[in-house]
C-alpha cells in the first residue's frame, strides 16, 4: 500500500554488462537467484519496502542495461537518484577498470549527496577472483565510496548493501544534509500523496 511507507528512495544500478546488476536487484526484491537472466533491454524496475529506524522506506530501483552503446541513455536515468549502486564483477578485471568512467557519470549526473556504493559481485566465484578486496577497498576509499562484496547467487551481503545505502541516505535526511522535498534529492516524502489537499493549487477538471 502506498500509505504504508514514509519515504521513497530512488536507486540506480550501474556497471558493465554481465556483472550481475539485474540478479542483484532480483535477489534483493524477490530473494531469489535467476540462474539464467535475460539481458536487460532498456530499463527495469524493482521495489521493496524496508525498515530503517522504525521508518518504512520504499526503495525504487532502476536497473539499467550495461552495454556501452546505451551509456547516453543511461545517463538520463541518473537524475534524482538518492543512491547509486556501482557494480563490477570480481572475476573480470576489465569491469573493475571501467569503474572510473562509471563513477565520472555518477558524480556528474547526480547531486553531491547521492550515496554511491561500490559493489564487487560474484563473491561465490571467489576462487576465480581477479580483483582483490584490498585493491577495490583502496579505490573505494580514495573516491569516498562505501564498498562491499556480494553474491547475487547466494544472496550474501545483497540485503546489507541496499540497506546500508538506505541508512546513509536516511542519516543525511536526519542530519539535514539532504532536503527530502527537493526533486534532485531522489527522495519522495509520501505524506504529500496521502494528504493531497494541501497541494491543490491548480484546479483541474475531473472529467
Amino acid at each position, binding site marked *: 500500500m502506498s500509505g504504508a511507507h514514509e519515504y521513497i528512495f530512488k536507486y540506480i544500478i550501474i556497471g558493465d554488462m554481465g556483472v550481475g546488476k539485474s540478479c542483484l*536487484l532480483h535477489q534483493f526484491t524477490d530473494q531469489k537467484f535467476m540462474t539464467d537472466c*535475460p539481458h536487460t533491454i*532498456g*530499463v527495469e*524496475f524493482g521495489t521493496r519496502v524496508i525498515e530503517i529506524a522504525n521508518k518504512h522506506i*520504499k526503495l525504487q530501483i532502476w536497473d539499467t542495461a550495461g552495454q556501452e552503446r546505451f551509456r547516453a541513455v543511461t545517463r538520463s536515468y541518473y537524475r534524482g537518484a538518492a543512491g547509486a549502486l556501482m557494480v563490477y564483477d570480481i572475476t573480470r578485471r576489465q569491469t573493475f577498470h571501467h569503474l572510473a568512467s562509471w563513477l565520472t557519470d555518477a558524480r556528474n549526473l547526480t547531486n553531491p549527496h547521492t550515496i554511491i556504493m561500490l559493489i564487487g559481485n560474484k563473491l561465490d566465484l571467489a576462487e576465480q577472483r581477479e580483483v582483490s578486496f584490498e585493491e577495490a577497498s583502496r579505490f573505494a576509499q580514495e573516491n569516498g565510496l562505501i564498498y562491499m562484496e556480494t553474491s547475487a547467487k547466494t544472496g550474501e551481503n545483497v540485503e546489507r548493501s541496499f540497506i546500508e545505502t538506505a541508512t546513509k541516505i536516511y542519516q543525511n535526511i536526519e542530519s539535514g544534509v539532504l532536503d527530502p522535498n527537493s*526533486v534532485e534529492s531522489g527522495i519522495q516524502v509520501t505524506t504529500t500523496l496521502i494528504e493531497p489537499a494541501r497541494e*491543490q493549487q491548480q484546479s483541474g477538471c475531473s472529467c
Partner: protein
Amino acid sequence: MSTPSSPCSTSPVTPCSPISSNNSSFLEDVECINNWIDCFAICSFDIELGQKIDFFYPSTYSERVDKIQQSNIAYLAFPDGGTQPTKNITNFNYAFRLKDEHNVAASENEFVFGHVVYRQKKDSSVHRGYVMKSLVLLTRHPYIKLHRYLVQRISDAYFIEENINVLHDVMTQINKWPYPKTDFQFALPFQGHRVSYRTPSYTPHPSIVRFLNSTPEAANSIKTNIYKKSKVDIKKDVNGRVSSVAPVTPLKERLLGRKYVLQHELNFYRHFKSHLSHLHHMWELVLSGEPILVLSPTAGECSSAVMALVSLIAPIPYKGDYRPYFTVHNSEFRSLPNSNIIIGVTNPFFVKALQSWDNVLALGKSKPKKSPQLLSNPLENLLALSPSKLQQALTSGPSRESLTWEFKECFITKSKTIVKGTLEGLVDLNDDDKNREGAETLNNDQIKRHFEELTESFLLPLHMCFDSLVCSLKTFIVRSEHEKVFKKERFYEYSKKKWL
C-alpha cells in the same frame, strides 16, 4: 459494427497448394511485388551491442534505408524495459509506426508500420541462457489485424528453426495475392488457410498530408480550436476540389459494411475499460490535437491503445503524428513536437522527459476489480503534483512475483473538457464471465457507434454548410497573389449566424 464477415477470419483451404520445398539452400530473395508488405527484419539482442538487425528480407531493403532508420527499427523491435519474464518462451506481438524519411524510395511524410513478434526463449547453450530475437514485418498499409495475424503466423514458423526459407515461401505466397485496395473484401490464401480480410475504406494519402502541411496557419491553429480542426479535415476530404462531397453517414457506412482505418481493427472496450468515463475527454483531446502520452507495462497494450485513440474520432482521419510504440533510443526522441502527437511507451522515464505534455494515460494490467476504485481517484489531486511525484503516483507498489513494474491506471490531464456525454448500453462484465469475448465485442461496437455518432454530429453543421447551394467552400476562399487562402473568420461568422 456487425458485418457478416469478421475483419480477419480464416478458413482452411483444401487441398492447399504445396508449400515449396525447403531443400534448396540458395534461393534468391523474393521481393513483395504487390506491396502488401515491404520487408521482414530479423533482429536480435546482441550481448555486446544490444538491439541490432541481423538481416532484412529481401536483403535489398538494407540499401533502401539508412543507418539511422536501421537503428530505429532495431530499437523498436524490442521492449524498452517493463516485463522480462523468465518463462521458457515469451512472445510479444505489437505494432509501431515510423517516419519513413530515411528511406530513399519513400516520398516525403510517408510512414511505415512495423509489426513485431519479440521472442525470448530459454536456451542453456547460449551465454546468459536466453535467446532474444524479434521478427519485424514492415508495411505501408494500416491493416493492423491482418498484419498482426501474419506476423504471428510467420514468426511461429520462422522461429522453429530460424529458417530463412520460411520468409521466402511467405513472400512467394503473398505475391500471388491481388494488389491491395481500399474498401474491399479479400480472401487471401495463406499457409493453407484462406484469410478473409476487409480493407478499410479510407487510407490517408501522403499527398493530402502534404497539402495540409502546406498551410502552416492551419496546422498551428489546430491545437486550440476544434472548429479549426474540422475545417482542415473538410479540406482534406475535399482534397482541393470544391465540390459537395456528400458526408457518409455512419448508418450508410454500416450498411455498406465499410470500415474506417484502424477503427475496426481494435477493441476499444478491452483497452479502455478502466477509462470509460474519460473517453469523451480523450475524444476531445484527439480531435483538438493535444499531445497524449500513453504509458503501459507492455508494448502490446500501449500500441493498441494509441491506435484506438487515433481512431476514436473516425470518420475524421487523425491528422497528427502517432507512434503506437516509441523508445528513448529513437532518433526523434529529442525532437518530438508538443502538439498533434500521440505516443505509446513502456518506459516511465517518458513521464519525466515529456513534462510539457499535459495529458498522460496510464494503462495497467487489466484488473477489472480494481478499476472502480481507481476511477474515483480525484484527478485534481494529481494535477498539483510535481513531475517526480506524478511519476510516483503513476507507478505503484512492489510486485512480489517478478520485476514487473506495474502502472496505476489513471488518466491525467490539464485541459478542461467541453463535451459531456455518457456511454450507454454497455454490458456489465465480470471477471469470470463465460461469454466474455462476446460481451466485449458488443461493448466495443457500442463505443465505436457512440463516438462515430458524436463525430458525425460535430461535423453536421460543417457538412450542411458545404452542401448547401447558397454556400460553398468558395465563399471562404480568397485568392491572393500566389495561393488560395481559407478565411476562417468568414467561416466562423457564417457558422455562428446560421447555427448558433
